[in-house]
């Protein structure tokens, strides 16, 4: 289990229901999903189909009712809450739809947060954060507050934050939906280059069909199950007519 995994994510028969006190709504119904190292995997489907729930379960931020969830070779469904929290801090990087940058601290401080969580000193963490900001083209904006940046720049800061602690799995929730097409393209190009690292995997939940052409594989979800997996850029291009960029 702990040897170098081929699969970054593998789920089996995952089920999850939500209760509103009266009724029980099943969201995931025995979902099978996998994502491999060195690839960008897209998870697409209509609203309410369970994409975000599956992403939350893969990220260990939500517990499944049943099924097996293996992330980077570890069964996170068998871990304690504290162990999953610790696991997230080292193995996962997050990119959120609304960026979720802390508005009252500088861009460099925002990027250094995962390192601070890991216990690194703030000076070292900020030095590392500045390196990452330079890599995403925002080295000169390190001392700026996030509110002074454009949406695209803020998402690039979020990407730097997701990478700063060098996690193998990057979880992205609608990373381009709040951006215009040019900024969306820039963000996807950065994510694409990250996914090119054979030790990394980028899993993206998205509605945005402009992102399809960047993916290595794509899982289509409906009513809580994966209906179809497109296993290559060519299959994606065939299904959606998207020009492959890699």
């Amino acid at each position, binding site marked *: 289990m702990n040897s170098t995994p081929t699969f970054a994510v593998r789920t089996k028969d995952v089920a999850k229901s939500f209760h509103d006190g009266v009724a029980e709504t099943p969201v995931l119904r025995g979902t099978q999903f996998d994502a491999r190292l060195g690839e960008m995997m897209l998870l697409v489907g209509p609203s309410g189909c369970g994409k975000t729930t599956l992403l939350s379960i893969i990220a260990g*931020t*939500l517990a499944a009712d049943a099924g097996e969830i293996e992330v980077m070779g570890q069964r996170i469904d068998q871990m304690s809450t504290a162990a999953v929290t610790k696991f997230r801090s080292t193995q996962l990087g*997050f990119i959120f739809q609304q960026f979720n940058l802390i508005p009252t601290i500088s861009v460099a401080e925002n990027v250094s947060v995962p390192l601070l969580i890991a216990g690194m000193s*703030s000076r070292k963490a900020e030095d590392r954060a500045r390196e990452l900001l330079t890599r995403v083209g925002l080295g000169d904006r390190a001392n700026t507050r996030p509110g002074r940046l454009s949406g695209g720049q803020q998402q690039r800061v979020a990407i730097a934050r997701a990478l700063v602690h060098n996690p193998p799995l990057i979880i992205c929730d609608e990373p381009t939906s709040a951006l215009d097409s040019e900024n969306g393209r820039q963000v996807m190009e950065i994510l694409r280059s990250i996914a090119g690292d054979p030790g990394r995997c980028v899993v993206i939940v998205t509605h945005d069909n402009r992102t399809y052409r960047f993916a290595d594989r794509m899982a289509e979800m409906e009513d809580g199950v994966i209906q179809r997996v497109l296993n290559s850029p060519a299959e994606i291009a065939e299904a959606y007519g998207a020009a492959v960029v890699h």
Partner: protein
Amino acid sequence: MLRLALKMLFGDHAKYLMLISGITFATLLMTQGAALFCGIMSWTYSPLRNIRADIWVADPQVSQVNDSKPMRDIELQRVRSVDGVAWASELYQGGNQARMLEGGFKFVTVVGLDPTTLAGAPTEITEGRLDDLRLPNSVILDEFGVSLFSDLIGRPIKVGDAFEINDKEARLVAICKSQRSFTGAPFVFTTYDRVTAYSPGQRKQLSFILAEPVAGKSAEEVARQIERETGLKAFTQSELLWSTVIWFIKNTGIPINIGLIVFIGLVVGIAISGQTFYSFLLENSRNLAALKAMGASNATLCAMVVLQSLAVGFIGLGIGLGLVSMMGRLVLRLNKVPFLMLWQIPVAAAVAVLFICTLAALLGIVRIVRLEPAAVFR
């Protein structure tokens, strides 16, 4: 992460200022109210601070130092004869009007001291000589009285000036420092034998007997001995002080009214700070969820919230105490408003602020523990 917590707090200027204002205002109300209360209470027992004696003997019905139920002069001899009493001397304390020769009058507290020993005389003479109190028609006036009389006649009153008490001349031979009285009447010290002339005629005029124990015996022990042998009420200085304070608490609305101010301060602090801190947390809940998703543990996030709460609390407390101290210095300079900041007041305020911060932090901790990291994806 703790440094980050402080930056998150200080960076939200509006909320931060609101939180600090809430705690500062609460501290201000609580400590100012408490200092006012202690100040008023200190005025009630000011005769005890102005007239120093270890044992105060009074009529059994007297329960506080401003009470006056005169005793027969013979009681002085009875007290002197009690075993363990080193010395005892008479003391008169009563109110009267002082009239300036230029016109205008003020209510004063006349204190009549033993003419031989001047026992109980003011300890700090700022002008003139205590011994001159033995000269005919002489009095010592406190600095507060000097200021009042000067205002009254439109020029500074000085040693050598004269005024009248009960139509009898009172020539000022010295000026002393004293503690303000509850009634606001300045203290006029004279000798016991002269009091007969200054006070309205009455059969008995011995207000208190001042005494001191012989070496080797405690004031409390001798006070009890005096009570047993004479049937009079004998207090040590501390007993009379607390008896006076308790009398005022029981018989006036002062503690209730000032207690209300202190309570309102606490409620204001809890309401403003608790509510503002909670809304600060609400606004930050998405960020907190993101931190949780990124692997920050509940313990780390709770420590951040506690630190934020304590930082606000102690900064607000410091500013509040600083403002109250400045106000205190100002009012003490004016010498017209009671204000006594005992060391227990800032300590109690710190405890109250800690309570407010704990409540605010608890709200935050409950929210953090319940917060699902998955909320960040919704």
